């Protein structure tokens, strides 16, 4: 694995390798010294053209905990403000010889372009309505800790599917792990032909009971340039998940940030079914695992002197 551009490019084995690795980073997070020297001396650039709290902060902390050197650039206040193109910005940053570039951009395919322009491993931290793979991986990680396996589980993705890259990445990820996915929302907020991704579609919450997991999306009002819903109030009436609609055995998830009182009621957010806090906590471990898998395992550096377990020609002490 050289880049992480989308869940679509990952096999189930690759997904599981990242989740397993994240489990070992969970242990690092419990130590007094929550830092390992793995990526010492390597540079990671984080480049955010859209606002972000969780994703950018957890990627940055993940890089620091792996001992990498981090340069983090937000579009506002950088030369992007002065009209520099993405390509020129990437060319400039490439002068630092980064091992990885973490990028969030409002246009689908931006991460792919950066991967073509740069030698670095590129991690897509959200590109337009396309994908947000690290979010899907951390959701899988949080879910796996609660459920063990997703095989045959029913997952409902509810809300503004149209504007959501999380919906797309998670749909692919949930399916890859063997779950059955239903997307649910008003017809205006469900992309046409989404069934092609192998999910069912519902325009009401009537059959929400069947879901083992209810994954609620944020109503992305900032991306809505036309009127997709008659009114917030009407949306709340038909699609808000509250403690009345949520069954006691259903797991509630949300990628954050939550519009409290719109797609989720306050009592649902704070309910015992809610996995939202665990999702945030998983972000750091999973993003450490992603950086590790791309830079330490899949890295392509010239071979320095080998360690104990790799003397030529074969490892010692460990039968094949």
């Amino acid at each position, binding site marked *: 694995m050289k880049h992480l551009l989308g869940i679509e490019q990952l096999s189930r084995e690759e997904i599981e390798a990242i989740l397993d690795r994240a489990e070992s980073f969970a242990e690092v997070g419990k130590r007094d010294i929550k830092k390992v020297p793995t990526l010492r001396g390597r540079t990671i650039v984080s480049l955010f053209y859209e606002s972000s709290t969780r994703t950018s902060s957890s990627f940055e902390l993940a890089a620091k905990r792996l001992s990498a050197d981090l340069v983090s650039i937000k579009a506002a206040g950088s030369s992007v403000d002065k009209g520099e193109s993405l390509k020129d910005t990437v060319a400039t940053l490439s002068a630092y010889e980064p091992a990885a570039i973490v990028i969030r951009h409002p246009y689908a395919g931006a991460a792919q372009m950066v991967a073509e322009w740069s030698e670095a491993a590129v991690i897509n931290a959200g590109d337009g309505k396309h994908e947000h793979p690290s979010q899907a991986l951390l959701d899988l990680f949080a879910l796996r800790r609660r459920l063990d396996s997703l095989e045959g589980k029913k997952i409902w993705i509810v809300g503004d599917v149209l504007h959501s890259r999380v919906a797309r990445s998670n749909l692919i990820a949930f399916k890859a792990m063997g779950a059955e996915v239903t997307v649910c929302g008003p017809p205006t907020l469900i992309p046409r032909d989404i069934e092609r991704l192998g999910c069912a579609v519902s325009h009401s919450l009537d059959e929400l009971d069947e879901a083992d997991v209810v994954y609620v999306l944020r109503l992305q009002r900032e991306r809505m340039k036309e009127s997709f819903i008659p009114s917030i109030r009407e949306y709340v009436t038909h699609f808000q998940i509250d403690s009345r609609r949520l069954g006691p055995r259903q797991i509630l998830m949300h990628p954050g940030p939550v519009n409290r009182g719109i797609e989720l009621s306050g009592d649902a957010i704070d309910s015992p079914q809610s996995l939202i806090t665990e999702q945030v906590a998983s972000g750091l471990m999973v993003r450490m695992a992603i950086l590790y898998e791309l830079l330490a*395992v899949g890295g392509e*550096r010239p071979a320095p002197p*080998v360690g104990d377990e790799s003397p030529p020609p074969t490892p010692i002490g460990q039968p094949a």
Partner: protein
Amino acid sequence: MSEKVVLQRDDLRRTLQRIAHEIAEKNPAPEGLAVVGIHTRGAVIAQRLHGLLGELAATELPIGDIDISFYRDDVGAKAPAAQPVVRASHIDFDLTGRTVVLVDDVLYTGRTVRAAIEALFDYGRPQRVQLAVLCDRGHRELPIRPDYVGKNLPTAREERVNVRLEELDGVDEVTISEPQTAEALA
């Protein structure tokens, strides 16, 4: 590929018993001792030594295991595809002020041990670190010397030392296998 058995089941048992006695002799105050094994086979050997030491000292010593993947000096140099990924360290006692006996199966270049010592220090500041290995095959690349050695195995670099343990491999033995030569393959 020809394989020569150098330690059999009983030899291995006796060897570990001897190491346990040496550890007990060198550390007359068992309260300050702790045993930490290096994944994967070092951790299993540590378990056994821990049992033997517990009998000798009539007290339960703290035991832990440590995974050095994050501390390797060759990170990114190769894809350790065959390695299992779910390995985490487990040290749930305070190392500070203790004598830690680090346990590994085979001592070779010394790089694994260096990494393990570095990892240990992220958990606390042990008063002393000692090293116990089942086999020392030589070819050191770092100034590292074991305190307890089960067996010295003079080997060529091309040879391979295989430690097999009941818990993981269903059999207790140590063997040396010769490299596959071009003629043997032909």
